[in-house]
Structures are given as C-alpha cells and as structure tokens.
C-alpha cells in the first residue's frame, strides 16, 4: 500500500515570505511618508519665511526713508535701543516707544523688531522678523548700516 504523499508546502506563501514582504513594504511606506511630511514642513517654513522677509524688507525701506526724511540725527538719537514694529501699517513718523516686542502680534503670527546700535562711526540696525514654527523660533534678519554723511 502506497503511503500518501505529504502535502506540498508550495501551495501558498510561507510565513517567512510574508514577513519579508511586510517588512520591506512597511519600511518603504514609512520612508515615503516620512520624507513627504518632512518636505511639507520645509515648504510651510519656507512660506512663513518669505512673508517674514517681506516684513523685514518693508521695515528696512521705512528706516531708510526715515533717515532721509527726518535726518540721520533722529536715527542716531535712538542708538542703544530696540524698537518693536508689530503694527502692520507704517506711518510717516510714528516711531514706537523703545522696548523689545512682547508677543507675536504682527498679523497674529510675526514679531518684528529693530535693534539700533553704534558700530564705529556708523549706525547698525538689525531688523529681525521672527515667528514660531513647531515650538521653535525661526527668523529672517536684515542688517543695514547708516552713516552720518549724506549719500
């Protein structure tokens, strides 16, 4: 009497095959989703930074206007102070009172301030627009120099 042949193990996938497939697939999926979300984060940050740069440039333009309009002495008199420009509309000669910003109130998201300091015979102004992104503070800065001689 012939013995029955043992059932072949070729009839389905083995456990090992399934495990290998699932692990390769999940590694690929996790890598894909990870890089996609990282790229999304960088893109959103880039967008915020573009707006922040615009705000900084706007203030830099206004400060050089002040230097021409009110004269160098007005800027010089403000040396050693920080000024907060969280108001989104800019006025002809409406300087805020000295002091650093207290919150991110420019457009409810940004904080824009200028630090005026002496640098040799020149006036160095550091304009910084910062914002909070993922609980860290990011910023876009511009440094401009004014000198006492007329241009």
């Amino acid at each position, binding site marked *: 009497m012939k013995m029955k042949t043992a059932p072949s193990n070729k009839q389905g996938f083995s456990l090992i095959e399934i495990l290998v497939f699932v692990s390769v697939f999940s590694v690929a999926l996790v890598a894909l*989703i990870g890089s*996609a979300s990282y*790229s999304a984060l960088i*893109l959103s940050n880039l*967008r915020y930074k573009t707006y922040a740069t615009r705000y900084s440039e706007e203030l830099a*333009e206004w400060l050089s206007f002040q230097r021409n*309009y009110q004269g160098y002495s007005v800027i010089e008199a403000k040396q050693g102070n920080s000024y907060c420009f969280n108001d989104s509309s800019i006025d*002809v000669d409406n300087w805020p009172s000295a002091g650093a910003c207290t919150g991110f109130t420019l457009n409810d998201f940004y904080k824009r301030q200028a630090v005026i300091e002496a640098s040799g015979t020149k006036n160095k102004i550091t304009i910084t627009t910062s914002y909070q992104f993922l609980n860290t503070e990011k910023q876009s800065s511009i440094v401009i120099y004014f000198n006492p001689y007329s241009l």
Partner: protein
Amino acid sequence: MKRRGFTLIEMMITVAIVGLVLPVLFGIIFSLVRLQVQVNQLQRLKETGDYVSNQILNTVRQEAISVANEECFDKVELGGSTTYLLFENKTDTTCFGYYVNDSKLYAVDEVGSKTLVGEDDTDFPVEISSDGLTMTEINDYLAKISFTIVTTPETSFLKPQSLSYQFYLYLRH
C-alpha cells in the same frame, strides 16, 4: 496534490487593503505637490513685487523733483483711473507717474503708458488687489504707495497667494 490559488475572500481583502492605502498615498503626494506649487507661486509673486516696488522707488528717487498730481493730471492719459500718483521730472519738467486701473498697475508718462503688473499674456499672471490699495500725495515732496499683489490661479485647486507692499516716496529738496 490539490493546487489552489487565492480564494475570493483573500482577493477581496487584498483589494480592500490596496484600496485603502493607495488613496492615502496619492492624497499625501497630491497635497505635497499643491503646497510646492503654492510656495513657488509665492516666491515668484515676491520676485514680481520686489521688482516693481524697486522700480518705482528708484525711478522716483532719480527722476522726480516733486509730487504733482494736480499739475500733471491733464498732461498724461490715466484711462479714467482714480488711483494715481504723478511726478514732475527733474531734467525736462515733463510728467510721469503710476496708476492702477482694472487690477493692473501702469507706468505712465506724456508719451504713453506701460503695464508693470497685470499683463495677461505672461506665463505667470498676477494682479493688483483693491484691498488696501492707496496712492497718496501727502505734500509736494512726500507720497505713499501701498498695494497688494495676488496670483490669479486658473484652477480652484490652487489658493491665490498675496503679498503686500507699502512704502513712502520722499523727494529731497
């Protein structure tokens, strides 16, 4: 030996899982591409806005001797616009200036006008928003311009991007 393939149930489960995973993957990639296009448009918008504001600032600084909205009104063709800023030229006392009409920003002089923002036939159409648009003569030597440029996407899939510019024009005298 009994050779069996997949049962109907197994195929249904596979298709269901693939059907769940694929839309999620496509959704992620789709929104990523959208974000990328929007950020790219914002960058190009800033390029355009920076170019135009620098152009106005530098031209006015170099060529204007006074703000002359009333004196120059009859000398240039403004196309019925009510938002304009006109200047008198330093060298030949002709008139030139800028005006906004129909969401477009024009540079104008006594010869004719030229579109600065809002040309339709470019590959990147943008326009001037009516929100916060002002061109103000404060006195003979001081003027203020503020404008917002926005992209005009052809599909509702992209949100319009906008960027605001405001600056004072001061003429030394």
